[in-house]
Structures are given as C-alpha cells and as structure tokens.
C-alpha cells in the first residue's frame, strides 16, 4: 500500500474510533441505570388462600414509606374478595412479605399497596413529560421471567384512548403491569399498564403525573383503608360515568346513509369501523357501521365496564319479496350486540320492553333492555335495539349498548339516539 493510502486509512480509523468507542458506552449506561434502580422494582403476587399458588402476578415499584405503586388489575382479586386472596411482594434483593391495599383507582388502573419492605430506595416520579423520541426503559417481571428491562421510545400521549396514556413502543408483556418506565436518569415517567392486543410493540403507560396525584391522595387519606373495595369501586365508576356523560353531551353527530340519517362517531375517543356482508347464495346484503368508545374500566376478570358502543346495519334486499324480507329482518333483530362480560356475581338479569316507535320519517320496532349491577349502586347496563318497518327492500337495524352507566345517562342517550335517526322521503 502506498504511503498516501496508508495515511488515508489511518485518518479514517481515527475518525471512526470515537464512534466505535460509543457503542460499549451506551449499554454500560443502561447497565448502570439498571443496577441503580433494580432493587426498587418489586414483583407483586396474588396468592390463593394460604397456599403459595399464584392467582396473578404483576410488578410494582417502591415510592417510600413502605409503599409500592402497581396496577389495580394486578390486585383486583384481593380488592373484591379480601378473604379469598392475599398479596405478597418479592424484591430482587431477596426481601419478601405480605402487602395490604392502601388505595385504588380503577379508572386509571392504579393501586398503592404497603408492606414491610425494609430500607429499599424509593424511585422518584417525573412531573414533566418526556419529549417525543426520548428513550425510556420499562422494567418488570414478564411471563414468569426474572426482572427484565425493555427499551422503548416515548411517543407522547395516545390520540385514540379516552383517558391519557403514553404511547410507548416497547416489548411490554404480561406480568410487567405496574412496573415503572424510567428515563435515562432513573426517574419514573410512566407506569406499565397495557399493550394493544392486535399490535406488536404497541404498549401504553400511565403518565407519572397521574401516579403522583394518586399517591398524594393515598398518603393524605385520613380514613383507614376498607377491607372490601366494592363501595369505593362503585364511587369511582359513577364518577367515570359522569365524565363520560359530559363528553357525550350536546347534539349527536349524524351521518347520511341515504335515504337514512343515523348517529355517527361521538368524539375522537370513539373508534369506528365499517364492513359489508355479501354472500353469493344470499339474496340480500348487510352493510355494517360499528363504533365503540375506548373507555372501558377493568374491574375484575369477569367485568370491564364504562363503555358506549353502537352499530348500524343496513339490510338491502336483492330479490326477496316483502314477507321474506320481513323474516330476514326478524332473524337479524335476534342477533344483537351483547356484552362480553356477564356474570351472576355482578349482574341481575335483563328486563326488557318493546314497542313500535314513530321515528322521523319511519316507524320502528324498538326493544330496550336494562340490568343492574349488584355490587355497585346506581349502575346499569342498557341495550337499545331499533328495526325500521314498512319498507320491502331496505331496513335499518341499529343497536346502542351502554355498560356501567347511570339510569339517567342511559335514558338520555337512548332518547337522543332515537331522535337522531331519520328516513328522508
């Protein structure tokens, strides 16, 4: 190799050396961070009775005074059935012991628990959010593995959820719920709360400001914590319903599906999708429009509530006569939106009424069903089904379903829903 070529290669090597030297520096920073805060991340276990069998596991982090922040859904069993379950913490340093619930927030899926955890360093909470693109680290105990750290990128608040959640693309898995998401200095900017079922690396965190406010309320609470949290959960669900009602207040947005006008998406936190059912051997077509509010509150494995869902189906006959089309309508009227969550423990049976109602421009058969929550005072599930009558080849079937709402809220939205349906003639 000639001298100029050697000089050139040396110059290139000198330029690249700092860059090459940075790669080991990045991972050592992560390692240092991990070593600094790992002892403050606990595994929270829900055990059945006096056995050591796990009914549920999650994660949490120490915030001082023996307090640990975790998700409500991790300890839901203990909150609702205190005589059946018990809580336990396990720390990386080997500490282990029982936990008691101090406070819960079902709407934000938070809980504060307390135990004799010893001199474990508390993690600090960031009151200011990160900037989009900042790196963050989520810690927890995923899927029965040991303490794990997952890197992700802060992407700001999700635009689609009803409550504020941080969108954090990172491999957060089951078991990491309740664990902290920290910045590069080890301060908590979020609490692991959920992942998107149908998306890879689409995870959500609860902003640390929520956790900070919640912790403040828990610390300043004067009354001793109750043994059974049913009453507290009912109070929080009713507050959630009031917030939901405020967000749905005002005239309902509508959309034209000629010759019909029907209620449309009610706000940005409502997700909508459309579809069509066409089969070669079926002489009619069904076009569907489905909208749901992403406001569900987890209460226990058999109950998620606090949502509003509605669906419109346009039935179009291609070659059926009026009587056969009416039969198709009857069959479709039987197929209704129904709640995925039904249990004897939480719900009474449905009581229904059905009448012919004169909507604007068309008559419709309307069926309304109501059931009440047994554990949570003043909360109901309601379904409203509408089927237009009188046309031989076109019909609208609409359904409105409201879960975990007050009676007044259900009736108010039902009336506005019916009044928003119009047939232009």
């Amino acid at each position: 190799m000639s001298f100029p070529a050697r000089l050139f290669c040396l110059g290139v090597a000198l330029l690249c050396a700092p860059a090459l030297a940075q790669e080991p520096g990045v991972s050592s920073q992560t390692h240092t961070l991990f070593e600094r805060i790992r002892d403050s991340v606990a595994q929270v276990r829900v055990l059945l009775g006096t056995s050591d069998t796990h009914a549920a596991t999650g994660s949490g982090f120490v915030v001082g005074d023996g307090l640990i922040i975790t998700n409500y859904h991790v300890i839901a069993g203990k909150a609702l059935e205190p005589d059946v379950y018990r809580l336990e913490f396990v720390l990386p340093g080997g500490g282990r012991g029982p936990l008691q619930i101090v406070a819960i927030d079902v709407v934000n899926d938070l809980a504060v628990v307390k135990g004799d955890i010893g001199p474990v360093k508390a993690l600090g909470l960031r009151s200011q959010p990160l900037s989009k693109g900042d790196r963050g680290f989520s810690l927890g105990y995923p899927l029965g593995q040991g303490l794990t750290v997952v890197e992700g990128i802060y992407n700001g608040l999700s635009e689609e959820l009803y409550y504020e959640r941080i969108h954090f693309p990172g491999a957060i898995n089951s078991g990491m719920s309740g664990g902290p998401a920290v910045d590069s200095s080890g301060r908590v900017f979020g609490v692991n709360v959920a992942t998107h079922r149908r998306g890879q690396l689409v995870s959500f965190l609860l902003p640390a400001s929520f956790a900070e406010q919640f912790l403040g309320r828990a610390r300043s609470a004067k009354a001793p914590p109750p043994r059974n949290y049913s009453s507290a959960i009912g109070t929080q669900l009713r507050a959630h319903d009031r917030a939901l009602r405020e967000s749905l207040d005002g005239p309902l947005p509508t959309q034209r599906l000629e010759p019909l006008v029907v209620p449309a998406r009610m706000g940005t936190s409502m997700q909508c999708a459309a579809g069509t059912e066409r089969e070669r051997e079926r002489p009619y077509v069904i076009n569907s429009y489905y909208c749901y509010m992403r406001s569900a509150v987890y209460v226990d494995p058999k109950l998620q509530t606090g949502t509003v869902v509605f669906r419109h189906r346009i039935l179009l006959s291609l070659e059926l006569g009026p009587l056969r089309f009416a039969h198709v309508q009857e069959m479709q009227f039987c197929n209704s939106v129904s709640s995925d969550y039904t249990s004897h423990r939480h719900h009474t049976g449905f009581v229904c009424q059905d009448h012919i109602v004169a909507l604007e421009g068309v008559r419709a058969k309307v069926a309304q069903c109501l059931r009440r929550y047994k554990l949570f005072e003043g909360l109901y599930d309601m379904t409203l089904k509408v089927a237009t009558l009188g046309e031989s080849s076109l019909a609208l079937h609409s359904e409105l379903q409201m879960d975990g709402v007050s009676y007044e809220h259900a009736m108010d939205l039902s009336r506005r829903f019916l009044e928003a349906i119009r047939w232009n003639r």
Partner: protein
Amino acid sequence: MDVILDDPFVAAAHVEIRDTPEGRFAIDDLQSLNGMRVLPSSETRTSAEIGPEDIVRIGHTQFRIRPRFYAVAGERRIRQGAAYRGAVMFTIAAAIVVATLVWDAFLTTSHRDEKALTAVSVFTVVAAGAKRKAIWSLVGRTAGRRANFAAHGFVACVGVLALQLWTTSTGYLAFGLNAGWLETLSVVGAALLFGYIVYRHLRLASRAKRRAHATVAACVAIVAFGGGSLLMNLMGAMDPAAQSHSYSLKAPFFLLVRGMSPADYIARSSDLKRAVDDLASRE
C-alpha cells in the same frame, strides 16, 4: 216371559224377576255360575229388591227394569260414524297442513341453496307425523274394529292447524295492541288446545271407555305443555345475558300500528328500572 241375552257369561236360566206389591221388583239368582250383582256393589247376591234406578249386572250385561209408566229419555239415533273418520276428510286436512308447512318454509328461507333443504324438512315433518299417527292407530280400535288411522290423522292435522291459527292470531294481536299479556294468554290457550287434542285422540281409542281417563290424560298434557313453557322462560330469566322480548315484526300487520314518540317510549323505561331494582334487592 223369558228374555234371552246374547251373552256367553249369562246362564240359560240366570235370574227370575217378579213384581212386588209396592211397585218394585224382586229378583232372584237361579244358582248361576257367575252370580248376580246390584251396582255399584261388586258383591254377588242371591236375591234383591230393586227399583227403577237400580242397575243389575249378570255376566257382561247390565239392565234396569222400569214400569211401563216410568218416564224415560227418548230414543236416540245410533251414530253411523263421524265424518272425520273417513279418508276424505283426513286427506283434505293433511293437504292443508302440508301447504302451510311449504308456505312457512318458503317465507323463512333466504338462501338460494335452501330450496332442497326446504323440501327435505317438509318431507321429514310429514313422515314423522304419519309415523306417530300409525303407531297411535295401532293402540286403539273403533267400536266397528276398523282401522282408525284416518280418524287419528284428521284429529292431529286439525289440532296442528288450530294451534298455528291460535298462536299466530294472538301473536299478531299482542304485537298490534302492545299487549304483553296476550302472549301469556297465547301460551295458556296453546296448552289447553294441546290437552284437548290428546283428549280427542284418547276418546277415539275404544279402550279409553271412561271419559275420566281421557280427561286425566288431557290435564297431564296441559300441565306438561304449560309447565315446560314456564320452565323454559324461567331458565331464560336466570341467565343474566338473556334478553327476552318479542323479536317478531309481524309483517305486514305493523303497517296498521302508529307508534309512540321516542320521548314517550323512554318515559316508560321507569318500569324497567323498578323491575331490575327489585331484582337487585332480592338477590
């Protein structure tokens, strides 16, 4: 005077009957093998004094003896056999039932490929009905010992048509008048009708000689039908996911119904709230 009875269980000289001064009759057993009874007693007697209302039984023959002046009911014409026992009436009734099945299947099929399935389902129902009627007709016989397949078949077809007419008309009335109680009446009426069909079947069979047997069987059928419907409703009510309301749109009857305003409809929901609050307080 001798009265000869065509009864192999009566002796050649079985009893002797004489007038009494009181206007009654004395009857003596002439040492027969099977004896003489004065109903309702089943005890054999060698002699008795009987009046115009007493029934005497010798062998398989029962008789009363009345004075000439005693008032009795007029003679009744012997029924030659009800018209419905004939094949013609059964054929007409069966044809109407098959026609309603075909019409119902036509209305309820909405897939192009279901025509063959429709024919199969109609044929299956007809074959099942014919099999049941054939089995039933083997159980009973008419007094004339003729096969009564046609009679049973006629009763069954008329019963099916009556049930359909009853449930359809009450269903339409309940829909048009918004009267839920009519749907309850529909179930009760259907149970009674079903019981009556069972009663007529049993009356056709000559072994059911006593009307009481047929009546008891009909009552059992009514209770079973009604109890079964009630049990299904109760089981549905116990399911917290079940929403039981009328799904029927009753075309084209709904064209006659005006309908109430949305506000009026919602105002009626207070009844729902009261009902579920009651449920919650009881559970």
